[in-house]
């Protein structure tokens, strides 16, 4: 899968343990419990047969739908807008500050959270209320992919998980094969404009860029490095990449009118890519974002031969 994948030693072990207990689960009753260690290192006791799930992040909601277990999903957040059917599920509020009361009222036997959106304080509070919370910690594309079988095993649908993961990996390999010999354009992923923020080396968004055949100009150790405009001018990236948001067109118009920004090669040559906001969600659609970006960066690689 290329040089971007870091060895996921710890997580692979956890996933394997969960997988083993999932086999035991087939003969279990609803009251049976098992111990697992989540991706943040917390010990969690979850029912062997999970029936009522509250998802605290859009990416996790998307994964649940992709695994076909949405009938067991009883609560989502205000931000869970994909697939559209998710918007009809009862909401527990915002990702950053969900209502504890609402979560309790939905009687979940498992809450799913992620370090990519939820606060530590929320996790502590849910723990205190005696509701098991399994936390995901997506730091790389490989983490995002491995979370799928982990979640599938937790929900005792290991086949669905293995199938979805394999399908996504096949799509990634197809992209990788197409762009293998292509030169890598240097890109700047703009996470935020005022102040200018990009994404660092150890984020799954960075891996999206690399997997799509690009090279990020912001190779920094911080998650969301703040960049100086001077540095950006000096690096003069070939492409500017933004995630879609309602204000993105207005922001781009402002950049094109700006005396400094307008001098960047990417803007002069109109090489600005607006990606679906799925690029910021560590769920299965991350592969859509990679394919979308690869097609724009390397159109000739995808022409029919």
């Amino acid at each position, binding site marked *: 899968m290329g040089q971007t994948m870091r060895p996921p030693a710890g997580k692979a072990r956890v996933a394997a343990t969960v997988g083993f207990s999932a086999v035991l689960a087939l003969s279990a009753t609803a009251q049976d419990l098992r111990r697992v260690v989540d991706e943040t290192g917390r010990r969690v006791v979850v029912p062997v047969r999970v029936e009522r799930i509250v998802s605290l992040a859009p990416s996790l909601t998307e994964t649940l739908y992709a695994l076909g277990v949405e009938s067991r999903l009883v609560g989502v957040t205000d931000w869970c807008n994909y697939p559209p059917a998710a918007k009809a599920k009862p909401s527990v509020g915002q990702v950053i*500050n969900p209502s504890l009361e609402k979560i309790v009222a939905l009687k979940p036997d498992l809450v799913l959270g992620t370090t990519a959106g939820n*606060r530590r304080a929320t996790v502590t509070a849910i723990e205190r209320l005696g509701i098991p919370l399994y936390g995901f910690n997506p730091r790389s594309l490989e983490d995002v992919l491995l979370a799928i079988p982990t979640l599938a095993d937790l929900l005792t649908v290991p086949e669905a998980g293995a199938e979805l993961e394999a399908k996504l990996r096949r799509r990634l390999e197809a992209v990788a094969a197409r762009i293998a010999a292509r030169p890598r354009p240097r890109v700047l992923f703009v996470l935020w404009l005022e102040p200018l923020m990009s994404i660092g080396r150890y984020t799954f968004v960075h891996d999206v860029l690399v997997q799509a055949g690009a090279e990020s100009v912001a190779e920094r150790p911080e*998650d969301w490095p703040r960049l100086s405009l001077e540095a950006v001018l000096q690096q003069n990236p070939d492409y500017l990449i933004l995630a879609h948001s309602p204000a993105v067109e207005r922001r781009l118009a402002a950049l094109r009118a700006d005396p400094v920004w307008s001098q960047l090669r990417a803007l002069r040559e109109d090489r600005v890519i607006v990606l679906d906001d799925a690029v910021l969600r560590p769920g299965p659609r991350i592969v859509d974002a990679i394919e979308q970006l690869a097609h724009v960066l390397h159109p000739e690689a995808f022409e029919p031969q």
Partner: protein
Amino acid sequence: MSPSVLSRTRILKVCVLLLGILLVLALVALSVGAVGIPVGRIVRALAGATTVLSAQDELILFEIRLPRIALAMLVGAALGVAGAAYQALLRNPLADPYVLGVSSGAALGAILSLAFAARVEITTPVAAFVGASATIAVVYFLGHRSGQLAPYTLLLAGVITASFLSALIIFLMNFLSGRDLRGAAYWLMGDLSNASPVGLGWLSGLVLVAIVGVYLVAGDLNLLLGGEPEAAQLGVNIRRTKLAVYLAASLATALAVSVSGAIGYVGLLVPHLVRLLFGSDYRLLIPATALMGAVVLLAADTLARTVIAPSELPVGAVTAVVGAPVFIYLLRRGVGSGGWR
């Protein structure tokens, strides 16, 4: 109203009135939320009936709402009294519990605990309290002159310390990960949403100590506000009175900020509101401010968790949005200048 004509009966009457309002409000706050629970059932459950609530309602009521309501009341009372005490100590109607940097010290402690959470086992409230206490000591050291707390020296020392600490906070926030950054931002706005029954006993005991501490010197504060030489002639130990007020008010602020972050406007506004309604005698002002602070913050927090339920607003945003217009209204009525004494 001059101190001499204030009777105990009047203090008692005002306190009973405010306590009544507080209890009614608490009952309403217990019954509303993302999940509605009828007041009748709550009253019966509180009276000892065991079968009126489902297990789920019981969890919501006793593990989520009750601790949160108690926390809102304690923090509101602490902030109100701290504000009234600082306004007297600094002779400044604009003084609030945060003007001397106690909240910035607490915020620095909290953010350090978030930044080093992986390496140091210390909970955020404890770290915040340590930061606040250190700030209280530093500001006292910088703000006293020949053993006396001089209002302007103290105020300047506090303001400078606060801005220095804020600069450190901004510096540190650059190094927080995305998740902790969100946590820190919420903390800075003031937030009661994750209240827990753990430690509530300690908190209420210490808040009570701080409030009683200010109340014990309330009579001396009245005299002090009439002028220091006159107060000294009447036998007030000025140095001791000021130190007691400084320590008690700072303790109240440190406690409040450590458990809830920096909730704005309550400490500034509530003392003015109480002066407008009941006069400015500190013997009445202190208990009335404590109760009114509890009422105001509980009302604000109940709004914060219900107006866009199941989503929540940070309570600091509610107190600021409601607080600023109310403050302007009070100012226009002349309370901000004349009424505070």
